[in-house]
């Protein structure tokens, strides 16, 4: 079945520096949608980015991600993090295989230090 892997459970970055959160996946489908969700403390996840187009950069709120099917990756990046970016980030995919539920990665806690 499909799976999403986020290798870093915890990432700590100093304010103003860049960050990359890793996301790789396995799927048997070619037509798949990918998402990054951000979850702030005591809130539900909110959609940050989505993409289904290979090699196309998607941007929102200063974050960007590019789907690379050749490497099965959809890493999330930001060139200069802010304190308010501290949150839990989930990578997820959704495929057309009968049921379209989101398959989440295990999440990466991003902590931005002053």
């Amino acid at each position: 079945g499909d799976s999403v892997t986020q290798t870093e459970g915890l990432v700590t970055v100093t304010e103003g520096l860049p960050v990359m959160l890793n996301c790789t996946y396995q799927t048997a489908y070619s037509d798949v949608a990918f998402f990054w969700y951000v979850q702030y403390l005591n809130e539900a996840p909110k959609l940050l980015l989505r993409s289904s187009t290979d090699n196309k950069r998607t941007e929102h709120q200063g974050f960007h991600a590019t789907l690379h099917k050749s490497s099965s990756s959809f890493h999330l990046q930001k060139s200069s993090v802010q304190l308010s970016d501290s949150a839990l980030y989930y990578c997820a995919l959704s495929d057309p295989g009968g049921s379209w539920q989101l398959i989440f990665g295990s999440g990466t806690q991003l902590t931005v230090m002053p």
Partner: protein
Amino acid sequence: GALVYQYPRRTICKSGTSMRMECQAVGFQATSVAWYRQSPQKTFELIALSTVNSAIKYEQNFTQEKFPISHPNLSFSSMTVLNAYLEDRGLYLCGASPGLPYQDTQYFGPGTRLLVL
């Protein structure tokens, strides 16, 4: 805009009792509703996927007998946790979508946090 409300936001129930939670979509038609549970360890589990006018599909480890779901129209869904025990605690999230398979965004409600004593 598209919004999803969940009621109650937080609830405490005694072990062995049942608890009903509701999900309401505003601003769009929730053709499909997925119920998730986020454990205290922050991992997600899909409980079931409900599509209006179709059978509800439960994931492995979750049953209709334990988590009955109602999805009577395009704006409302409810789920009950029957005979709740400690392992049922967590944040229950409702994700609603206009419904095109995998092409539509899932909008999440704020969740219902269940504590079991």
